């Protein structure tokens, strides 16, 4: 197994851009994880905020006596700290929601394709029905029903996103299901579980990995939208998306930094994740190897 990983890494290295993107993703994850130790201020500590520090431009020294490298927002939060904490929150929510949605959606899509029949038809009609609704609408309704908070938000994101994984997994798996190697495995005979997990699943993964990257990015923006609409996370604990929407009203008054810096962070994060996903697709598809 370690041999396969080394082999994969050799293949991954072929694209310098992807290597840089991977470093960026790792750096972002590290920054997010280490936020409580490296941020100059705890942005969640309401008592530590001073309204006289509100909307300071980047580089000014506030009442805390330290430089606000990225300025402050309208509540007087140090933006650098808020971005680090927001990144932590956004990544945590979107990655865990994306992972749960991936597992759930893949399980539904694969078994629908493999077993077919009325079960497959019913499962995929439910998925189709759900895909016909905008994800944001579904998430809105769920958050409104479940209430605010991180677990509720994650549940809403999973419910809004698993259908994309289910549809992609179903499409890829039903194309693979008809191929001779599945027939050969079944006629060996190997158990249905083995054929499903050892043959069908690995051949269905590459498109799913691309979907994961897109969906993590979508989850970040979905979460931001919900927060913007006042249904996501409380304003005292701003995520990346909430920071952007908070600064939106000051954008035209020259206080660009409140929206722009969280925006740049979001953009770099999403771009880097997508680049890594692209290269992973190359690595996971042996046909692309030379």
């Amino acid at each position, binding site marked *: 197994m370690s041999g396969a990983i080394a082999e994969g890494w050799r293949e991954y290295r072929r694209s310098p851009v992807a290597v840089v993107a991977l470093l960026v993703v790792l750096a972002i994850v590290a920054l997010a994880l280490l936020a409580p130790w490296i941020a100059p201020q705890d942005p969640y500590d309401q008592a530590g905020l001073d309204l006289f520090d509100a909307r300071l431009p980047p580089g000014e020294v506030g009442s805390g006596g330290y430089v606000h490298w990225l300025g402050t927002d309208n509540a007087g939060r140090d933006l650098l700290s808020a971005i680090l904490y927001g990144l932590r929150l956004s990544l945590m929510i979107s990655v865990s929601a994306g992972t749960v949605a991936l597992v759930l959606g893949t399980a539904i899509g694969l078994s629908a394709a493999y077993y077919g029949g009325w079960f497959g038809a019913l499962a995929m009609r439910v998925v189709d029905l759900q895909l016909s609704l905008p994800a944001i609408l579904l998430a809105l309704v769920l958050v409104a029903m479940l209430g605010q908070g991180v677990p509720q938000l994650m549940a809403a994101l999973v419910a809004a996103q698993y259908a994309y994984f289910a549809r992609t997994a179903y499409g890829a798996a039903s194309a693979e299901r008809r191929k001779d*190697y599945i027939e050969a*495995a079944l006629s060996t*005979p*190997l158990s249905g579980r083995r054929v499903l997990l050892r043959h069908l699943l690995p*051949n269905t993964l590459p498109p799913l990995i691309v979907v994961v990257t897109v969906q993590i990015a979508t989850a970040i923006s979905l979460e931001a939208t919900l927060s913007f609409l006042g249904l996501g996370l409380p304003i005292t604990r701003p995520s990346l998306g909430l920071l952007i929407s908070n600064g939106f009203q000051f954008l035209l008054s020259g206080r660009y930094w409140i929206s722009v810096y969280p925006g740049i962070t979001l953009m770099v994060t999403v771009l880097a994740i997508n680049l890594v996903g692209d290269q992973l697709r190359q690595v996971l598809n042996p046909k692309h190897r030379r």
Partner: protein
Amino acid sequence: MSELLRIERASKRFRQPVPLGDRLAAWLGRPRPPRAVQAVTDVSLTVARGEVVGLVGESGCGKSTLGRMVAGIYTPSEGAVLFEGAPVMPGGHKRSPRVQMIHQDPFASLDPRMKVGETVAEGPVAHGIVSRAGADALVAETLRRVGLDPALRNRYPHQFSGGQRQRVAIARALALNPALLVLDEPVASLDVSIQAQVLNLFMDLREAAAGGSGLTSLFISHDLGVVRHVSDRVAIMYLGRIVELAPTRTLYAAPAHPYTRALLDSVPRLGQGRGVFHPIAGELPSPLAPPPGCHFHPRCPHAGPRCRVEAPALLPVAPGQSAACHLHHGGTAAAATA
């Protein structure tokens, strides 16, 4: 020779799913289109231990469907496929790895994401033929048997040529120590030069096995030349039915069924110069709507009135040779009165 495989009056129908639009049209009164494809009709055949039976026919004649019923991929709609006296698919599920199949296209029949060594080892380990620890030795030995370097086991199928892949597919089947191999056009998708290699490998394996357990096989092909090379007996199929069954030598020397004769005539031969080919007149009818009576009568030069109404049974015409043709059993002129 003891009997290994017995196919008893097996038939296979495939029902086509009816699209919603057609169902609506039928409900509104439009006649329903035929829904079932009769791929194999009432086929009986036995294969003895150590024997190679060739199964020949045009595309769509049901030979692959018959092979898949033997290999335990399809259950017969009617009749039975018995291997060593027991159904191949008891309760609709195949349990024993004693019958193995080689697919036509080695580019599709190997899992592209599995190293060939794992592909070969998977079946034997799953069936407890070898332990996980012993699998390496079995893989090496089996790859060597099919003429591949065991060092290639860590490669993926796309790193192999078509001929090598087919060897891997053969190794996958042999590793399970099968008593019967179903070979579904095993060389049809390979280059001619590679075809010879794979056929020779197959002949070697057969010779090597002749002393021991005996490699019995059902060799499906549309290529009469290839079948003549490898088979002891040949069954000719036309539109789901066996129309002639004979020892290879007899079949090629004295074909009894007009279809067999037509097939042999249509084979281009070397040494005929700019010879004239004799294609069979007409087209293969759709198995959705086969002609009544003898299925071959619209294309048969000897067809009479009886052929249009009565399907001939496969009956002996000479020792070891059977044909399903009225010419040999009562003539084609008058419809039989029951």
